[in-house]
């Protein structure tokens, strides 16, 4: 584990983050948007691990665990909401949820 530069880890995290970002932007399916956000959160967690590894501190990993918790809570609430919305709109189209505008 000598020759892995910090940059490489961060770039990996950044790339994954951007991929999640692209996905959020292009997907109309709400579940996909949720998944994409999860990818982004995961990427952020990865970045913490990289940073933690750089300083040799456990803090990064602690943070990762908290992110994990948060992601789980988020997904659970999100899915509940999606279910609810699906029952009302009969679709998973995120763009269809645009009753409020102006």
């Amino acid at each position: 584990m000598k020759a892995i530069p910090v940059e490489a880890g961060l770039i990996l995290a950044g790339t994954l983050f951007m991929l999640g970002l692209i996905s959020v932007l292009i997907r109309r399916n709400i579940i996909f948007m949720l998944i994409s956000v999860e990818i982004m959160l995961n990427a952020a967690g990865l970045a913490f691990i990289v940073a933690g590894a750089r300083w040799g501190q456990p803090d990064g990993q602690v943070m990762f665990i908290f992110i994990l918790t948060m992601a789980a809570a988020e997904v659970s609430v999100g899915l509940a909401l999606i279910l609810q919305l699906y029952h009302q709109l009969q679709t998973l189209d995120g763009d269809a949820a645009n009753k409020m505008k102006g």
Partner: protein
Amino acid sequence: MELTFYVASAIAILSTIMVITRYNMVHALIYLIISFLAIAIVLFVLGAPFIAALEVIIYAGAIVVLIIFVIMMLNLREETVQQERSWLTKDIFIFPAILSAILLAEVIYIITSGEQIMLDQPSIDSSAVGMSLYGPYVIGVELCGILLMSGIVGAYHLGRQKKKIVHRFLEHAEQ
């Protein structure tokens, strides 16, 4: 060791790309699991074995399964895939891709602009993480509990079905 890192990274990126381009949701989720597994390897390489395990267990295990469960609950059919295909045209990629590319370019530029630092710290094992977690960050852990509590209460309230039949056949029949 480095090779593992790069290979796993490549797999993670590739499978994530696959995730975001799939029409079928279940396929995408399978790619997502692959991606998570690859990231788990990366995490392991970076000296976080405990986190790697958590990645597999919670992300790939719990969260993805939860999503799949919901997909099953909604009983999405082939039309959804068709719909997804119609939504996911090429031109919809262009602008988001450009934006993200700019952002990525900026981030990469910034990340690489500094002097290169090698990750040569020893691996931080689960005990160290545990000591830290239940040492200084113990209130954080408790707050995590509160976070989960609010998530649960919310999910419970929102997800509760009131005499409403979820299955669409029955639903149609009822109408």
